[in-house]
Structure formats: structure tokens, C-alpha cells
């Protein structure tokens, strides 16, 4: 990220920065210091916080902007041929073919994107960490079984698998006995199914090395139970890589949601979703650019912000990592 001062290697510079003054700092203080120094990551973080606020307060934001709700169909916002109006004073981002406000729908689309992104990544991390921990810690047949299963899942073409599951679960009352109902839950299920494996692999690798480290051996020789070793000794040491990987996974899940919705197997209309809006706009892009550009820009901005923050987190949490 930062360009080293003349004569100093990058890691020496970090060392200087982190330990200047000889004051001892906790790892989290060090992390925050490093992150604060990374302006790009901070800007990304600001954008993300703003996005989350906008998503949480979507009704308020839309109201303050004086825009109609995301599902309000205004026939008067289209001409006699049904052509929607472009951006204007009443509709900042124009309207879609149903006369719905694109600004309002873009704002509400953030809810779906972030919901799927955060919940989907969260569940995927939970599953991935559990599987990775078990496989790495117990090794032997547990490892063989879980690792081969991960290999099998990884060998599926992600998007095809997603489309298949999403189509199966979006019919009737859903799948898994109705537990996965059509709509957001199905999308989250797909996201989890296709993303947990990468986390599991990383965690397994880390655990394999951690379990041989002195502090683990020491704990074991003191008679600590497996449960204690895993939760107290190993898990805390996984925090950094898990945070880094999940922050890089999150934008992928947001894109996956958009892709599924684009393909018509994601969140169903009328719920506003950026992917659906982009797909819907693709037929009329030549004459109604606003319908694609605004949700597209929102998607780009969100994914870019998460990616940049992920890079920043990686730098800050793991200074030795070579970029």
C-alpha cells in the first residue's frame, strides 16, 4: 500500500510505525493504528458504514428525498407509449417501466444486497470455520471425509449449482421441507452452499499448523480438553485470517445475489434487487439508460468498497503478508 521511505523496507517501516516510542500496544490497537493509516481502506469503510445506514434507514432516506416508495407505480411517470421518464426533479434517478422511482428502488436494493452479503457470508463463515476446525484439528478420517467433501462441492460449477438450487427452491413452498422458502432465504442458502468451502480450506490449513505450535502442545500437556484447546487456544488465533477472508468473500456474495437475480432465480419482484433491475433494464438500455446505470453504479460502489476494505484489513491484520 504505502510506499516506503528511502532506505527502509516496507516491513521495517511498519515496525517503526508500530513500535515508535517504545510503548507496548495490544494486537487490536496495532491493527487499528495500521488501518487508520490506510486512507483507501478508511474511505471504503466510510462508504460501507454509510451504505449500511442507508439500507437500515431506507424508508427515512426515501422520505427525506421526497421520493415515492419502491413499489409505488405511477402511471403518470410514463408517456402514452409506456416509455418511462428519465431523471428529473421529482424522480432523481428516473423511473422504471412500471413508473416506480429508480432512486427509491436503488436505495431499497441495498437492503437485499447487504442482507444477503452479511447473513450469507456470516453463515458461510460459521460453517466453513466449523468444518475447517474439525478437519484440521482431528485430522485422520475426519479430515479425509470433510476435505474430500469440500473437494466435491468445489468441483461443481458455482453458478450452475446456484441456478439449479435456486430454481428448485423457488417453486411451491420451497425446499428442505419448507425451511428454505422462495426468495431471500433461498438466495442465502445458495450463497452459503457455494462459498463456505473456501473458508473451510483456509481454516483447516491454519489449524493444521496451529495445533503443532508450542502453546497448544503446552496446553495439551497441562491436560486441557480438546474443547478448551480449540475454543481458547486455536480459535482466537484464527480471528485475523477469518476476518480477512470473510471481508473478501462478502463482495463475492453480493455479486452472486445480483447474478442470481439477474438470471431470474434470485429475489423475486417486486422486491427491489440490483441484479433484477439490471436484467430488467437490459432490453431497453439504449433508450432508458438510467434504469441500468444507477443500480449498476450502486452495485459497483458496494463491491468495490468491500474489496478495498478487505485489502486494507488484510494489510492491517497480517503485516507480513506479501502483497
Amino acid at each position, binding site marked *: 500500500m504505502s510506499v516506503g521511505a528511502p532506505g527502509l523496507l516496507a516491513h521495517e517501516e511498519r515496525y517503526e510505525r508500530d513500535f515508535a516510542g517504545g510503548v507496548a500496544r495490544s494486537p487490536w490497537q496495532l491493527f487499528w493504528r495500521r488501518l487508520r493509516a490506510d486512507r483507501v481502506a478508511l474511505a471504503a469503510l466510510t462508504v460501507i458504514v454509510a451504505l449500511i445506514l442507508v439500507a437500515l434507514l431506507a424508508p427515512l432516506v426515501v422520505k427525506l428525498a421526497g421520493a415515492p416508495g419502491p413499489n409505488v407505480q405511477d*402511471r403518470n411517470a*410514463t408517456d402514452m*407509449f409506456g416509455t418511462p421518464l428519465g431523471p428529473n426533479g421529482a424522480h432523481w434517478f428516473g423511473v422504471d417501466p412500471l413508473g416506480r422511482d429508480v432512486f427509491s428502488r436503488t436505495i431499497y436494493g441495498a437492503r437485499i444486497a447487504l442482507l444477503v452479503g452479511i447473513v450469507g457470508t456470516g453463515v458461510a463463515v460459521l460453517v466453513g470455520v466449523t468444518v475447517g476446525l474439525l478437519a484440521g484439528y482431528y485430522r485422520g478420517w475426519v479430515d479425509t471425509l470433510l476435505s474430500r467433501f469440500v473437494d466435491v462441492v468445489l468441483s461443481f460449477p458455482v453458478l450452475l449449482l446456484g441456478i439449479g438450487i435456486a430454481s428448485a427452491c423457488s417453486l411451491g413452498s420451497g425446499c428442505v421441507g419448507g425451511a428454505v422458502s422462495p426468495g431471500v432465504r433461498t438466495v442465502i442458502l445458495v450463497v452459503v452452499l457455494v462459498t463456505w468451502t473456501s473458508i473451510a480450506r483456509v481454516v483447516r490449513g491454519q489449524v493444521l499448523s496451529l495445533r503443532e505450535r508450542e502453546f497448544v502442545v503446552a496446553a495439551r500437556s497441562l491436560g486441557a480438553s480438546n474443547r478448551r484447546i480449540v475454543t481458547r487456544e486455536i480459535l482466537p488465533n484464527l480471528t485475523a485470517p477469518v476476518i480477512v477472508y470473510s471481508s473478501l468473500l462478502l463482495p463475492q456474495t453480493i455479486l452472486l445475489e445480483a447474478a442470481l437475480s439477474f438470471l431470474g432465480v434470485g429475489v423475486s*419482484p*417486486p422486491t427491489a434487487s440490483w441484479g433484477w433491475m439490471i436484467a430488467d433494464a437490459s*432490453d431497453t438500455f439504449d*433508450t432508458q439508460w438510467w434504469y441500468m446505470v444507477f443500480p449498476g453504479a450502486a452495485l459497483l460502489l458496494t463491491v468495490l468498497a468491500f474489496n478495498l476494505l478487505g485489502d486494507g484489513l488484510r494489510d492491517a491484520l497480517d503485516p507480513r503478508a506479501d502483497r
Partner: protein
Amino acid sequence: MRRSAKRALPLPMLIVTALLLSACGSSSNNGGGSAATADDGAGGHRGGTLTVLTSQDIASLDPGITYQSLDLNVLASTVRTLYTYAPTDAATLVPDLAVGPPQVSGDGKTLTVRIRRGVSFGPPVNREVTASDVKYAIERGFNPNVANAYASTYYGDVVGADRADGGPIAGIEIPDDHTLVFRLTRPTASLLAQSTVLPLSAPVPPEYAKPLDAKAPSQYASHLISSGPYMIPADSDGKVLGEGYAPGRSLTLVRNPNWRAATDHRPAYVDEVVFRIGGSPTVYGRQAFAGRGLVLADPPTPALVKKAYQEARDQIFFSPGAGTRYAALNTAIPPFDDANVRKAVAAALDREQMRRVRGGAVIGDIASHFLYPGVQGFEEAGGLEGTGVDFLVHPEGDRALAARYMKAAGYPDGRYTGDETIQVVGLAGAPDSNDAQIFDQTLKDLGFKTNLKIVGSDVMYGRFCGVPRARVHACPNVGWIRDFADPQTVLNLPFNGNYIFPENNPNWPQLNDPAINRAMARGELVVGEQARARAWAQIDRMVTATAAAIPWLYDRQPNLFAADVRCVPELWNQGHCDFAYTSLK
């Protein structure tokens, strides 16, 4: 019969329409339709190649199977049915392979058709067409390897047809090589005569087709033998697949060397018709609009319709009478088993907005019953004014009336308060998905909780709307096009309680009203155009009054073509350019 749901809108399909006059008449009411007028093509320039752009492929070239608009468009210039319609008159039967009008016996149970002499099959059969070729063509429709979708509907009353499986049918007699006699069990001969405009009556040479029909499914579609002015280039055995037809890529029609102009009313101006299959409809639309010698077989996008309408009206033709679109409400399960709830939804629906998202007034009139402009009985059922039911009087929706109907249904505050979640299944792709969302929002505004699914048309009909056990409450994107110029073909299958099937059910609202069923049974046997129009108009009024389905659009199908194309639209077939009449300027 059961596959008739395939003929539902918006799968592009056959239509039949009234005289051009009705198009002009209705256009004056709403400003639509004043684009290119239907041209009979007389005196066209000979020669040249016409290129047809279509995003969708041919479904089947077999005249015994074909039931889709694009395929009918191809067959109209490659095979000759007993009777047909002139391109610009979709109501009057014109003899094609037949000579003279159909002769119906006094008791209505015998139909005699004389076959024209001098019509020959194209290569490699190269012989004269006889009555036995038509007899075989119809019989093979009952062969399970062909499985024609409408054979049992229209030929079902022929003696022996109830046991037909592809072999000879006793009730189709050939006293000589150029006479066909149909003997029927019921007095429905005039309906049968009209149904011969469908391609099942086009001749098929038995000595050539029988080995192909023995295979499951029949391979005749890959070997279509021409009897019309054009043929598909084939190898020496007559196989067109891989020669003139490359599925998903292209189809070519060239002149049939055995066709004699003296035997035909078709002028056949162009030398060649080339189909480019499988591109993007948006791109194809733009190409056809700006290019040369091009015809668009897909419906143009609303944006292109607007552009053509504003900038080049002689390049777009709005074909009247392209079917009725409606929302089906499932009368078999709550809450739409209650007529008042259905009427509330009908009253609330903004049909003006439903039409607006499809392109506005130019693409059709707002519907208020099911027989549509150009179908016999349309005027008798109330015309564009409607049948008079209060819940369809206001095209923009009447929320107050809707609230009154909800109160009548037992919801005191005029909104639905029950706990059913309404399953709505709509059609994917603009503008259909937009119509589905308007309908969905209407239900929400009335207090319903809904679950809207947007799916492709095969899934919509094949897994949801046409399958009663799927328990779908509402299908806002269904529609119907008549098979030929008779009102029975618009109302009988979609609203007859005897036609509720576990699969491929065409009666989407599952309407099973004994009075309507009885009226339809009587209506089938009514003889005479005027009498049939009145009888079926009355049935239309009865169906409309149930609010089992909410009619919302009488389609006027836009057809787009390049500036140098003199398109002669098939009014009976959604206004596609008829290749045997169309010429290049």
C-alpha cells in the same frame, strides 16, 4: 385437445381476425392502428431475397404437429390446406387445395370437399396430390407419434375418430381421387370445414411419410414435402434437416419447381426467404428497422414500436384481433372461490396501466370480455363497451367499488383480512413481468399477502397455471387466440368445466359452472354464422359475469419490417408478413 394450452398467449400462435375494416374502426377510438394498413400485395415486384429475423426457432415443420404462429407462417407458403384465408380477410374461407366451397349436408353430419387437380408435391415425391394424401394427413394426426394437439377437438366427431390411432378412419371416405367425404356422428360439419384452415389438412404423401411416422416421434418434420409455392432445400431423399434447415441457426425457402401458378391464388413474388434464427430480439428489431429486405418475426420492443410509430409508420403494422389477455383467478380454492372477492380484484385492477407498460393504446384495446374484435360474436357480446358488468366499467380501476365487493364478501373494512397467501405466477421478461407486478400490487393494495413467482412460459403453463394441484391462486399473464373464425374456439376450451385436466389444463380459472357448460354444449351444435355469434356472445356474457377471469387486453400485434419490404400481413396469423404475397420494393 389437452395440448391446446400451448396455444395460449403469449406463445406466439395462430390468430384469425376480422376484416381490415374492424382495425380501422377500432383505431379511430384510441389513436392506435393508424400505421401501415393491410396491403393485398397485388402487382408486387418479382424476385429478390427476403430475410426473416427471429429470436425463437421453429417448433415443428410437420403440418400434423405445428401449432405455433411462426411455424404456421412457414407452412402457409410451403403446404396447401383444404381451405385457407386470404391474408387480408381472416373471416372468409377461400378454397386452396379444395375447389369450391365446402358442401355440408342438410343434417350437418356430412362434409364433402372436392380436391383441385394439377397440384403436385415437390421433390422427391413429384406426383399429383390426391384426396388420399389429405385423408392420410388427417389420420396421422391421431398417430401417437404425431399427436396433433387439435385433431380430437375438430375431427373428433368423424365416425371412427374416437378409436383412431394413426390407421384408417372409417368416416373419411374417398369416392374418387379428387373427392373427400367426412361422415360425422354429430351435426358439426361446418365447424369441421372451418377447421381445415389449420395445417393438419395439408396433404402428406403416405408412401413417403409412413416409414417416418412409424418412428417415435415421427421424423416427417425433417422431411417436409412441399405442396405450395416454396419448398425447403433437401437432399436427394428429401431430408431438409441439415440442408435447408439448421435448427437454431437458419431456414431457407426456395421456389418449388413443381408448383403451378395457375392452380394457386398466391403470387409468390420473392425468389427466396431466408430465416436467421436465434439472435437477440432487441438487436434483430433494430436491424429490421434500419436494414434492407428484412422482416422481424419477433414482437418488437415497446421502445421500437414507439420509434417506428413516430418515425416510420409504413414500417410497422398493428394486426388487429391477436387474442385476449386475461388474469385467471382460481375458482376452485379460497379466497377466489368467492365471486365477490374475484369481482373486487377485477374492479380494482388498473387495466389502463396493464396496457401502458406494453406500449399503450397502439398495441391494443382494453378488454372487457373474452370474444375479441374480429371474432364473430364480439359485437353481440357488447363490443368495446363491454357486457355491462360494473366491475369492468372503469379501465383505470375503481377502488371504491372494489371495497364494496370486499364488504359483500364478508370483509367489513373493504380489505382482505383472511390468512391465505395468494400464489401469483407471472411470466418472465418485459413487458409480461411488469403486468404481473401490476396485478400483484393490486392484490396487495386490497390487503392480500402475495407470493409472486416470475417464470418462463413453459413453466407457467406446464407446472403452475395448467396444473390444478399446484394450487396457484392467480395467473395474470394468460391469454387465448382463436384457431379460426368461430367464437367457439375462443371460449370452449378455456372456460368449459368439462375441460379441467390434471395436466395441461386450458381452463386456468377452473371454472365449472353447470349453466355455462350446458350453454356451451348447445352452442357447439348451433348452425349458421349469425346464430352461432349470438349463442356464443351469450356464453361470453355468462363467463364474464363470473369474474373467474379478468380480461385486460385485446391484442393488436405489432409487426415490423424494413422500408423496402412490401409486407402483406397474415391477419389470421398475428399479422406476420405472408411470404407468398410479400414483395420487395
